[in-house]
């Protein structure tokens, strides 16, 4: 248990995923506690999405265990999924449904009662500024509105664990800020928020702890201060990230291109 007293809501132990000879994720172990926002960083192809898919129960690990809200994702998948919400990087929704109909369908999937579904739909549509467009088909929504609809769908059952894959990609600053505020509120209410992002500034400002994955291995986990102590005197997350993932040599390439 963490010092704050909150229990871990996501626990991965020695998580491994192989595709034949290719090792996508290698021996990854970490915990995310209730009340914290955990940022998951890594270069392209480092194993971020594979790890997320194993946490959310979309992929079976080759070895190791994942627990969400105390439930083993392999052994108790329905309970683990009922406790979590997932926001994928691309909002693939049902374009012919309206936002309201989609949320009603999600509420039905999560076995919420009818009155609660209708109340929750109104709350979420208001919260995400989608009330006016709630009865319009999703294919008429902008990218930002679709992204907000996906997030509303993930929050429909008030999950204890929220997993987001690149949640702010393609959003205008106002929508991005709104999502950041909502995630912070979720964490303040005791939920565990796990997000992957390429935007290091978001990770640095939003996340309580950060994990960095490279070539399938978790190479660093900790608060910003703990990560600074791992580096060679770097102070910004960008410098620490490049130093740990071996991307610092690109600065030399940039010099040559000048």
């Amino acid at each position, binding site marked *: 248990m963490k010092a704050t007293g909150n229990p871990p809501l996501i626990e991965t132990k020695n998580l491994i995923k192989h*595709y034949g000879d290719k090792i996508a994720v290698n021996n990854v172990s970490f915990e995310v506690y209730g009340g914290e926002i955990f940022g998951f960083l890594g270069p392209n192809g480092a194993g971020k999405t594979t790890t997320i*898919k194993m946490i959310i129960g979309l992929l079976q690990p080759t070895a190791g265990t994942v627990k969400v809200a105390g439930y083993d994702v392999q052994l108790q998948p329905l309970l683990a*999924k*009922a406790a979590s919400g997932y926001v994928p990087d691309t909002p693939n929704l049902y374009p012919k449904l309206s936002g309201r109909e989609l949320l009603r369908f999600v509420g039905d999937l999560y076995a919420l009662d009818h009155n609660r579904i209708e109340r929750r739909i109104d709350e979420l549509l208001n919260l995400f500024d989608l009330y006016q467009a709630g009865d319009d088909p999703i294919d008429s929504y902008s990218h930002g509105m679709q992204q907000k609809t996906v997030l509303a769908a993930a929050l429909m059952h008030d999950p204890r664990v929220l997993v987001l894959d690149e949640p702010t990609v393609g959003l205008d600053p106002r929508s991005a800020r709104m999502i950041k505020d909502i995630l912070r509120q979720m964490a303040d209410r005791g939920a565990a928020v796990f997000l992957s992002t390429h935007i290091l500034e978001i990770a640095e400002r939003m996340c309580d702890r950060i994990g960095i994955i490279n070539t399938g291995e978790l190479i660093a986990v900790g608060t910003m201060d703990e990560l600074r102590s791992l580096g060679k005197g770097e102070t910004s997350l960008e410098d620490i990230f490049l130093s740990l993932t071996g991307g610092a040599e690109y600065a030399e390439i940039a010099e040559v291109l000048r």
Partner: protein
Amino acid sequence: MTDAALGNAQAAGNLWHYVGKLLRLRWVIFYSGFRRAKLRGKISTIVLGLLVLGGLAFAFTLSLLLLRLLRSPGLEQFIGDTRLLIAGVPVLVVSAAFVGILMTSFGVLLQALYLAGDMDFLLSAPVPLRAIFIAKLLQAILPNFGLILLFGLPVLYGLGASEGYNVLYYPLVLLVLAVLALAAAGLASLLVMAVVRVLPARRVAEVLGFFVAILSFICSQSGQFVRYSDLSHDQATRAFTLLTRLNSPWSPLAWAGRSLVDIGEGFWLSGLGLLLLTLVLTGGVFALSLATAERLYYSGWARVQISTRKKKAIYTRRSATAQNRELTVAVSRAVPSALRAIVIKDFLMLRRDIRNM
């Protein structure tokens, strides 16, 4: 989520309950699309519905004419004993249904499993994996199954009525067609996953669309050139013999059709035996396909592509580069670089498209 809600999710976790929810979603999507469509779209949908009803009436008429033809003394003189041919009709219909659903559900399953993009959304919800796959398979076969029933049922029921088959024959026709459709959809799902491991799903969909269009064109045009009046006695006999060959005792598809005929004629032992064999075989194929598809999808292998191209040896590229250098220099002098770049880009894309076909 509260513990009570978690309990609800768990308690409500029976398979068919969720299959029902997922299929209801398809209805909601259809109804929403219809409700929001422009007047022209609504009229088109209604006209399509009326055309389907017209097709049903046409299929009934056609089946009556066909049965009359099969029982006509003229045909008996022309091809000999027609009893074998009549007994082969159910085999022909169920075989056509199986092959038809296998082929048509390939495209629908490709769309449902890979291109619809809702798999991750559904798999991350507290819904049993099996319910999602069953819903996807049913979604793939239901429209095609409807079409098969549209054309197959009038023929099979007409046959039953004209031959005075047992009353049990009629519900069993539906059961046999349904289990064959499920087995065909199961096999199609495995085929889709195998193909998508080699080629990107979108490319497969494009190539499939191209081939279906070409095939439809060839079928529609070839009908214009056939002269049925020139059909000789020999050719007709050979064609009918070919149809009766489908009724081979070693063909699993024939077992299904023969079971219906035997039950209809009151040969209970052979009829029920063949029916049981059909149910076990199709049930086994469906269960195996479902379990394999789930496993492949969950383990991630269904979404991993394998490279079928071997890397060229380095020396080949080097020697080719040396040989082409002079030619490249000459071309670059004659053709502006922007034009050259566009032509090369188009050529590379064309080469890739042909290779992927």
